[in-house]
């Protein structure tokens, strides 16, 4: 009988997970947090090296003469401009230009790509591959992946990799050997920090984990669960499927759907690329007419919020993790949008949120108010639309 799965790292992660705080991710159990409080895990991402099990990502290998053509057709990026060893972040849309999912495309060689996704997409890929010389296979279970994120991630990897990573640029990938095990390493991640993702055969998972944990011992390597990751990704201005947007394939009603422009992915929509791609017409129209909504960052004004709490004699009460809930955003007394994830940023010492605002309120610098609950009463804390990402260290791309 089918059950929820454990990742190939489970033997190690389960031994370390003190609070037995498990979360579900794409049919797998993953660690929510390893420690009783998540502060150390968060700071490992920002100050040392965080080791995160990201195996549940959906992974597809796309091979063949037309592999690039398929991805060029399905995604919004200009795949033909991609060189071998390059990784693109991209979304993909339906015919109406609404986002189905997002992930990364890595060009392994001329005719081989690896696509990651949040949700199953094999049917969509196959429907678009009709008549193309391409072979699509799912490797979600057979390829394990670890994310090593934080300023010390490179030095840790350099200690155990056959070839060093000093020359590996942001969003590039190399084949490498790690502790004697064949892996591919991409300079990617979900934290907005210096970081790498290591892709390996599932049977080598424990070996790679052990090698990294040992090599990182003197560099502050810390196993990190997805709760701390959730805080870091908000700081990095990165959204999440099913939290910050709904796949057009899942939406019950039209207004639940989002276009890439509405999510701030303008830079990933290559309207200048040649030929047809799914959603092109609708996206061209939206580009021309402007988007009705935009996802933006908002910063809640701490002093203003402090006052609302002070009125009842309390200091501000902010949870220590990211909040995944819909919080109304107002201008005057009119609701103009909502925040989908909010988080305290321990590094910035700010309360921040990813928010979806209607035109014209999404312009930078707009003053808005976000609904908060102060001692069971609805209040509205002053906030401002700010540029994303909230946090971007200089070493992220260096």
């Amino acid at each position: 009988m089918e059950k929820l799965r454990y990742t190939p790292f489970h033997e190690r992660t389960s031994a370390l997970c003190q609070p037995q705080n498990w979360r579900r991710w794409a049919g797998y159990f993953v660690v929510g947090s390893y420690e009783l409080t998540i502060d150390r895990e968060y700071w490992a991402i920002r100050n040392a090296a965080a080791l995160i099990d990201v195996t549940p990502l959906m992974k597809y290998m796309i091979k063949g003469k037309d592999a690039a053509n398929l991805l060029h057709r399905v995604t919004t990026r200009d795949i033909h401009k991609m060189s071998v060893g390059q990784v693109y972040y991209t979304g993909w849309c339906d015919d109406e230009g609404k986002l189905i999912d997002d992930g990364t495309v890595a060009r392994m060689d001329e005719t081989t790509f690896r696509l990651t996704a949040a949700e199953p997409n094999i049917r969509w890929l196959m429907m678009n591959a009709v008549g193309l010389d391409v072979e699509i296979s799912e490797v979600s279970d057979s390829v394990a992946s670890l994310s090593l994120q934080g300023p010390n991630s490179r030095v840790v990897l350099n200690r155990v990799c056959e070839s060093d990573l000093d020359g590996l640029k942001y969003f590039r990938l190399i084949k490498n050997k790690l502790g004697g095990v064949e892996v591919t390493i991409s300079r990617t991640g979900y934290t907005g920090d210096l970081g790498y993702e290591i892709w390996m055969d599932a049977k080598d998972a424990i070996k790679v984990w052990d090698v990294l944990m040992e090599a990182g011992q003197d560099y502050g390597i810390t196993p990190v669960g997805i709760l701390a990751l959730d805080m870091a990704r908000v700081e990095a201005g990165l959204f999440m499927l099913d939290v910050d947007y709904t796949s057009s394939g899942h939406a019950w009603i039209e207004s639940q759907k989002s276009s890439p422009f509405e999510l701030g992915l303008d830079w990933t929509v290559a309207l200048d690329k040649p030929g047809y791609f799914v959603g092109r017409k609708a996206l061209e129209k939206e580009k021309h007419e402007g988007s009705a909504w935009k996802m933006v960052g908002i910063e809640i004004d701490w002093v203003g919020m402090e006052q609302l709490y002070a009125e009842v004699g309390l200091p501000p009460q902010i949870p220590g993790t990211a909040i995944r809930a819909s919080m109304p955003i107002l201008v005057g007394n009119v609701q103009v949008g909502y925040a989908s994830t909010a988080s305290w940023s321990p590094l910035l010492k700010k309360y921040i949120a990813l928010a979806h605002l209607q035109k014209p309120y999404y312009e930078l610098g707009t003053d808005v108010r976000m609904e908060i609950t102060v001692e069971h009463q609805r209040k509205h804390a002053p906030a401002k639309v700010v540029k994303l990402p909230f946090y971007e260290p200089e070493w992220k791309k260096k």
Partner: protein
Amino acid sequence: MTNNNYDAIIIGGGHNGLVAAAYLARAGKKVVVLERRHMVGGATITEEIIPGFKFTEFSYVVSLLRPEIIRDLKLPQHGLKILPLPSTFTPMDNGDYIAGWDDHDTTRREIYRHSPKDAEAYDEYGRRMARLAKAIKPILGMLPPDPTSLSPKDLMGLLKLGQFASTLTEKELYGLSKIMTQSAADMLEEWFETDALLGTKSASGIIGTFLGPRSPSTAYVLLHHYMGEIDGAFRAWGFAKGGTGGIAESIASSARAFGAEIRLNATVKQVIVKGGRAVGVALENGDEIYAKAVLSSADPFVTFLKLVDQKYLPDDLTHSIKKFRTRGSSGKVNIALSELPKFTALPDSNVLHRGAVSISPSIDYIERAYDDAKYGRFAKEPYVDMIFPSMIDPDMAPPGKHVMSCFVQYAPYDIEGGWDDTKREAFGEAVISTIERYAPNIRRAIIGKQVLTPLDIESISGITGGNIFHGELLLHQLFFMRPATKWSGFRTPIKGYYLAGSGAHPGGGIMGSPGKFAAELALKDGI
């Protein structure tokens, strides 16, 4: 000495009759329900056929019982509990199985084992069907408008229907038009490739009909059954505590609490009509009972052709009712077990027994079963939908023992040469040996069994043809055409005489809507 004057008489104490009685009593009316048998429930009954073993005799699951009826009649206070049926398990001929569980991830994994494409299609298909069902479901909650009528009421109704449809995208509207005409097989094959998944899904398209999965219009039947699933966790297929008889008991208890009287062993012989108006009924024992209105929850055949003199009815109506498709196509085998059947496909688990087990290895398998029935034979290898009530409600069997309910299709009412004991026995045997192929210990586990052919269903419950839905749920027998064009509105050509059973809109299944609608209409008519 009973006073034999009432505001309303309800003929038949099935779930619809009881619902009608409860609503009328709730409105302060003096109501009597006349039930032919020694117990209420009609086709919604639980009986202890073998001491200690409670059989949910005919209908066995519930999904469509209207939530407003549950609330209005306070059914939970009268014992109603609808317990979850968390899975559907289909054993396959190669020794494997395919199952749907109540969890998205495990179901996806399970289907993925057989076909990654089907695993994804399953999600998409579910959403498509749910959206379509959502668009047309409000029809179940309204009186069906007649599209040929220009009366403001009908026009408003049609407009409302149009509004529901306008929530659909162009793609979905095309899909809906296709579903209205397609066969279940054609529709499902557009989505899936795994035989056992196709077989199991297609079964919803043929239940209660005398059609095969490759017959046109069965796609709609499938959608009709989907409506029970669209409210997600709030409402899904379930099993009522105490079996479906538990539902009837709770409605009866509610009706009594509102002041309704329920008379058992009271067979109605005829409706008394005076001056073109129903004024009461005559019982077989000679008693006469009078009322301002008579609501019949019997099937359309009984209601129009048996209980009233046809001189009161227009010819086209009697003609339509004579031609109303109400041939039973399914039987029931209820079994008392000393142990659970062990399915070779999953021998070490009792988890699957909490849900449904479906013998439906492919569409062709079911279509072949239909072929038998088409020519007047019961299916030698039938489609069987099993549940184990004692695994869901432990009070259904003695501790350590079990009961098993098998819905079996096809068993034609008009079997060649007519049903007799030998054929019934052979039919039961065909079912047991079909199950035995997948669960070899079944035979030795049997303590006793009850085999019900459509003829038995007819003779016990009184439903003509033994069709549990009081007439097949086919598109041409639904909405403004149920049970006949021009007479879909619960009223009949005889003033004060109403159709309040599953033969009226919106149709069969333990829904309660016909009873509620008819009662509301009678109240509106000022009884």
